[in-house]
C-alpha cells in the first residue's frame, strides 16, 4: 500500500509542491474512525433529527413537534430551563471572571495559583450526584450550614432546607460548577491582556477605574460574552444534578426528556423525547453560533504568547 502511495506523488500527477505522499487511497485511512463515529455519534444525531419529524408509528409528520410546542407542561419546563441557565451563566460568569482576575493579580505559577487552577478543573466537571451530596451536606436537613442556621438564625430561609429543592436552590447548585468553568475559560484571556495598555493608560494620567471603564471592560466584553454563552449551554444541557436533587419531570426540559424516554408506567413516548431534544438542540446551536462569532472577533488580539 505504501508503494502505491509513493507512486501517486510522482510529478506525472501534476501535483507539484504537494508536501508529501497524497493519493486517493489515503481516504481509506479515515474509514475506521468514520465507522465508530458513524455508529456512536452520527447515528444518534440522525435518529433525533429525523425522529423529531415523525410520529410514534414512524410516519412523517410535524404533529408531535407542534403538540410539544403548544403543551403548557413543556413550555413551563423549557422556560424554567432557559431562566435558570441564563441566571446561573451570568452569576457564574461574573464571579468566575472576578476570581480569575484575583488569580492573575497574584503570583502566577505559585502554589495558590496552581491549586486554584487544578481545583477549578475538577470542580467544573463536578456535577450530578456528588454535587447534590455536597449541597445536601451543607444546606440540606441536618447539614452543616442548616444546623448553624437553626441554632442562631431560625427565622431565615437557611434554617428550612426546602429552598434547595426549588428554582433558587438549583441555581445555587449550578452556579457552583459554573464559577470554576468560567475561571478556566477566562484565565487565558486575562493573562493575554497586554500590560502595555495599562502602562499607556497610567502614563497618560488615567486612573485605575478609567482604565477598566475605557479600556479593560470594552476589550474584554466579547470574550466575556462568549464565555457566558458557553456557561449557558453548560447548564442548559445539565441533567444529572437536577435528576438527583429533584426528580420532577415538569421542572426542567432534560428531566422531561428522561421521563418521556424511560417511563415504565406505560407513558414512554420516544417521539415526544425526540421533539423535546430537537428544541434543545436548536437553542444550543443558536448559542454556539453566537459563541463562534464572538470568538472570531476576540481572536484578533487574543493570541497565544
Amino acid at each position, binding site marked *: 500500500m*505504501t508503494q502505491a502511495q509513493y507512486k501517486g506523488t510522482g510529478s506525472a500527477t501534476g501535483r507539484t509542491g504537494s508536501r*508529501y*505522499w*497524497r493519493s486517493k487511497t*489515503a*481516504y481509506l*485511512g*479515515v474509514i*475506521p*474512525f468514520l465507522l*465508530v*463515529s458513524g*455508529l*456512536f*455519534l*452520527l*447515528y*444518534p*444525531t440522525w*435518529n*433525533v433529527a429525523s*425522529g423529531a419529524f415523525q410520529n410514534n408509528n414512524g410516519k412523517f409528520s410535524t404533529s408531535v413537534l407542534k403538540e410539544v410546542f403548544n403543551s403548557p407542561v413543556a413550555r413551563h419546563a423549557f422556560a424554567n430551563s432557559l431562566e435558570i441557565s441564563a441566571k446561573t451563566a451570568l452569576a457564574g460568569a461574573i*464571579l468566575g471572571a*472576578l*476570581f480569575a*482576575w*484575583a488569580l492573575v*493579580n497574584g503570583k502566577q505559577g505559585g502554589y495558590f495559583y*496552581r491549586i486554584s487552577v*487544578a*481545583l477549578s478543573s*475538577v*470542580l467544573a*466537571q463536578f456535577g*450530578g*450526584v*456528588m454535587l447534590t*451530596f*455536597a449541597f445536601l*451536606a*451543607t444546606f440540606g436537613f441536618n447539614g*452543616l*450550614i442548616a444546623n448553624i442556621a437553626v441554632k442562631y438564625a431560625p427565622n431565615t430561609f437557611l434554617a428550612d432546607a426546602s429552598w434547595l429543592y426549588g428554582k433558587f436552590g438549583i441555581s445555587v447548585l449550578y452556579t*457552583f460548577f459554573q464559577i*470554576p468553568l468560567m475561571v478556566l475559560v477566562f484565565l487565558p484571556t486575562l493573562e493575554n491582556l497586554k500590560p502595555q495598555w495599562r502602562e499607556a493608560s497610567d502614563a497618560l494620567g488615567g486612573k*485605575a477605574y478609567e482604565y477598566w471603564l475605557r479600556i479593560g471592560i470594552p476589550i474584554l466584553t466579547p470574550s466575556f460574552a462568549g464565555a457566558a454563552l458557553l456557561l449557558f449551554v453548560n447548564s*442548559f*444541557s445539565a*441533567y*444529572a444534578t437536577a435528576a438527583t436533587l429533584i426528580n420532577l419531570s415538569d421542572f426542567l426540559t*432534560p428531566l422531561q426528556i428522561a421521563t418521556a*424516554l*424511560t417511563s415504565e408506567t406505560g407513558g414512554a413516548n420516544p417521539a415526544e*423525547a*425526540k421533539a423535546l*431534544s430537537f428544541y*434543545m*438542540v436548536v437553542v*444550543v446551536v443558536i448559542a*454556539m453560533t453566537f459563541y463562534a462569532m464572538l470568538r472570531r472577533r476576540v481572536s484578533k488580539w487574543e493570541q497565544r504568547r
Partner: protein
Amino acid sequence: MKQSWGVRLWRWTIISIVGAYLLVPLYAMFDFSTKPFGFADKGRTFRAWSIIPSQPDLIAAVTRSLITAAIVMALILFLIVPTAIWVHLKLPALRRPFELLCLLPLAIPAIVIVVGIAPLYRWISIHLTESPISLAGVYSMLILPYTYRSLSAALDAVDIHTLAEAARTLGANTSRVIFGIIMPTIKTGIVNGSFIAIALVLGEYTISNILNYKTFQVVIAQIGRTNGNVAVAVSLASILFVLFLLLLIPTKKRRSEVLDVDLV
C-alpha cells in the same frame, strides 16, 4: 510588582467570597461523612470511610469504570489521534469536515445523545454484552471536542509535515511515522486528552443512569439512598483523587517541551 491597597483589598474580598462558596460544601461533605452513627451524638468517627473497601458493589463499579476509561484512552490513542494526524498530513480537504464532526458533540447535550442512542444500546445489550464497559463507545464521542482541541493545538505548534517527510526519507514506514515520530512530539496534548477521559468516565451519570448501566456514579447514587455517610465519603475521596492526579502533571515543563519542538 507592588500592589496598591485597593487592589489587594479587592483581591482578598473576591478570593474569600468565591473561595467560601466553593470550599464550604467540600468541607461540609467531610463533616457529614464523619458524623457519628447511631446513639452517639458526640465526637467524630471515620467509620463511613473505613467501610468503603467493604462495599462490593462499589469496588466492582470502580473497576468497571476504570476499565471503561482505559478503553476510551485506547480509542483516543489508536483511533482518534492517528486519524487526526492522518487528516492533517494527507487529507487537507477533509480538515474542515473532520473538525466539524469532532465539535458536533458540543451542540448535542448528553441527554439528547441518550435519546438517539437508546435503540443502539438496546441492541448491544441483547445481542452482544450487557456490561457497562460497552459505554466506552459513546464516551469516546462525548470527549471528542476536548481531545480535538488539545490535539489540534499541539499539531499546529509542530511542523508535522517536515517531521513526517524527514522520517520518510530516513526510511520509516507510515505507522512508524505516526506512532513513533509524530505522536511522541505531541504527547502533552495526548496526556491532557487522556486525563479528561478518566474524569469524564468517572463522573458520567446521565447516559448510564437512563440506559440502566451500573457505573460508578449510578452506584454512588444508589448507596446514597441507604447509607448517606458512605456515599458522601466516597464522593469526597474521588474528588481528592482526581485533584491529586491533576496536581501531579507539571504545567511549566509541558509548555517548554512544545516550544522546543517548535524551534526544530
